[in-house]
């Protein structure tokens, strides 16, 4: 797609999420839904047909009471940096990765709803609009003008709050400031009451995320797939770091609802 582009000071936006701080309150999920005009659930929706760009999973170490430990893992699009699974399977270029930001973007209006990308995503971070969006009468007045509502039959996912990115870019343009990379904060980062989520440019060695991502306790989900996600998780607990690896069928059996 990109043809002979000007050399840009490329950013690599990424996140670090401190799982030891996350207490699973769900503020990030709701802030995300508000920011991105994600509609409330259709009455027939379940946790398998819902729309949660950011979903907090409750995980435990699979043991019984005295030994049982629980943690919460917020999972959004991991913005894979290498062989991004969803990008190269999309038949009509509805998904692309922005060289300027490293953000994996998805265009619902280009999407034909074949859901091949959903099959390709190991993190189940992509969601399909099984219904047309619907808000209680009058509530559509409270939609965010920075993001278009999606129609039924298309896939959507986290794009690191691109609406806010646009706003920051415009403000920079109006103020005559350089606009690559722009500073902004995604909704979930802003909303997290415990400050567990940090966001920034991984290419900037001075940034918090770059520092935290390099720390020993930090890890990424399914690292061995070599998809190079830009979302780093952090925990001092060994068993929590284990959730990043492949499933454990034996333990996973009784793990029904958390």
């Amino acid at each position, binding site marked *: 797609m990109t043809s002979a582009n000007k050399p840009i000071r490329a950013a690599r936006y990424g996140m670090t999420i401190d799982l030891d701080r996350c*207490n*699973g*309150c*769900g*503020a990030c*999920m*709701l*802030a995300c*839904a*508000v920011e991105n*005009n*994600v509609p*409330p*659930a259709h009455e027939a*929706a*379940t*946790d398998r047909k*819902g*729309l*949660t760009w950011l*979903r*907090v*999973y*409750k995980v*435990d170490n699979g043991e019984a*009471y005295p030994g*049982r*430990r*629980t*943690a*919460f893992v917020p999972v959004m699009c991991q913005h894979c940096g290498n062989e991004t699974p969803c990008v190269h399977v999309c038949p009509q270029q509805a998904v692309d990765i922005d060289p300027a930001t490293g953000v994996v973007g998805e265009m619902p*209006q280009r999407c034909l709803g074949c859901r091949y990308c959903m099959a390709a995503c190991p993190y189940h971070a992509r969601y399909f609009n099984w219904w*047309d*969006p*619907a*808000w*209680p009468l*009058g*509530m*559509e*007045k*409270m*939609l*965010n*003008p920075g*993001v*278009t*509502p*999606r*129609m039924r039959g298309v896939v959507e996912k986290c794009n690191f709050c691109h609406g806010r990115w646009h706003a920051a870019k415009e403000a920079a343009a109006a103020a005559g400031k350089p606009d690559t990379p722009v500073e902004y904060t995604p*909704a979930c980062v802003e*909303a997290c*009451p*415990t*400050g567990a989520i940090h966001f920034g440019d991984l290419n900037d060695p001075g940034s918090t995320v770059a520092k935290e991502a390099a720390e020993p306790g930090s890890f990424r989900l399914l690292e061995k797939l070599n998809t190079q996600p830009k979302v780093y998780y952090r925990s001092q607990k060994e068993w929590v770091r284990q959730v990043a690896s492949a499933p454990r069928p034996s333990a996973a059996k*009784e*793990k*029904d*609802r*958390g």
Partner: protein
Amino acid sequence: MNATRRQVLMFAGGSAVGVMFTPAPWRLITDTALWSENWPGIPAPPRGEIHTRFTNCSICTAGCAVRARCVGDQPVELAGVAGHPISRGALCPFGIVGHHLPYIPARLKEGPVGQAAAAIAGGLAKCGPAEFVVTLDLQPGRTASWTYRRAMGALKNGRYIAPSVDAQVAVDLSKARTVLSFGVPVLDGWGTPGIVNAARAGFRLIQIDAVESRTASMADRWFRVRPNSEEVLAAALAGRISPAQAADATGLAVAEIAALAQELEQGGPVLVLGSSQLESTVGTVVARHETPVPGEWKKSAPVTDLASLPDRSVRVLLIDESMPGGYLQWSAIARKLVADNPVVVTFAASPEGYARHANYALPVAVYPEVSGDVPPAIDSVASTFRIASPLVSPPSGMVNPESFIATAAGLSTGDTLRERADAIHKSARGAVFTYADGQSQPLKDMKPDDFWKVLNAGGCWIDEPGAQTAAKLTFGTAARPPEEESDLPLAIVVARETASGIPLLSKVYRESNLRLAPGYVALNPACGLEDGSQAIFETLLGKATVGVTLDSGIPPGVAQVSATPALLDLCAAGARAKVVRS
């Protein structure tokens, strides 16, 4: 004949070929594709200038400061106010979607205002000497609460009832090194998110909980006791009973209890939450100064609790659940009502609370439609005064409970909020934090009008910290002795982390399994029911249809019940239940 048919066919064929060489077919497929981008039913978000407005969240007493991103005057996004001395920029999940509160599907739209007023007047007239006119205020400590007390004071047999009486004691988390919580959701909706998170690193949290609540799972130590045996453990820790006795009741090992006791010895200062047996270390609890009120307000009905009223004595009951707090079980209230047609009026936003029992349910405006103050938070060492100023205008036909009750009692009131603000200003205590500029300045340097302006444009008055004391903090539900004997299989634990009816909350309980949904009961996966299935929940007080959530954090023999009024009405203290397939 044949020929003409062939000609027709050829003409058709010709036009078919021809049309391919015109823009028509190509434009049509393009247009239909474009149409699918904005076909009917997909709303276009309103465009307009972006403003920032400030208010305080009045969904709970944490009263977190709110920064609202508005398009035109329509709030589209809420966030915390960074640098706020109390809420510290944090906002809980419910606060994040607070601006959707007016759109709860089951919202009360209109009510029999005239009839209610007439009925109340009738009730007051009929009220005998041994009968009472009662206002039940689910969220005491507000300016409106004072109006209710004055109104009830103005009546010869008026009474003012609130679920929690002691409003002036607060906890100081920053002083505690150990927090021992008996089933109190410390990390999940109990205090002010900002304060709790800021202090969290400083204390060790020991959670006594019958189920793996969200707090239990995040606590440093979690003791799983048998439901309703928290107080027994507390008694043992207080040395009133032997660890052995406690061990039988709680299901903990004697050694565990001893170890815990020792841990508390060394772990001081200890803050104890949710127990009437154990006292917190001095320093972790403070007695706040009362937020000043105009002197003339003082001659008003005292704050009493329901138990203080004799049965069958309430002639007129007015319930303000416009800002819900603790819920009193209906059966306990019903016992107090006179036998011959009492008058029960509730002021509610949703028909799911007392409106199910009242003779008249009057609709009220909700946050962020209405202006009202938020009582100080339990974990705020200083008294506060902050106003939830409206971000949107309420729908027509909403009733203001404060003025309605005042009028009914023949009490003439002015702008009570303003009067309160002036009283506070007279005291010249404390400081004012302004959200717009993030600056804090002493109240005495401010003119009354500026103070009033700041309060309404997003500001917060913070008193000087109160005196350190010791106290038993029994809020939450410290288990009382069972009110009934029942052989039903399941012990009940009430989940206080219940989501209200805000549409978008489906994200956390229907589109994911993060929280227990309203009207749901969480059971151990071994209970034999399917996850998400419908079932009948039954106690001695009655039955209700509930949804079932399977959660391996719930031990067998326990049912965790979402705190929806309909279910709370079935769950007397220490009650047991059974859940059967419907």
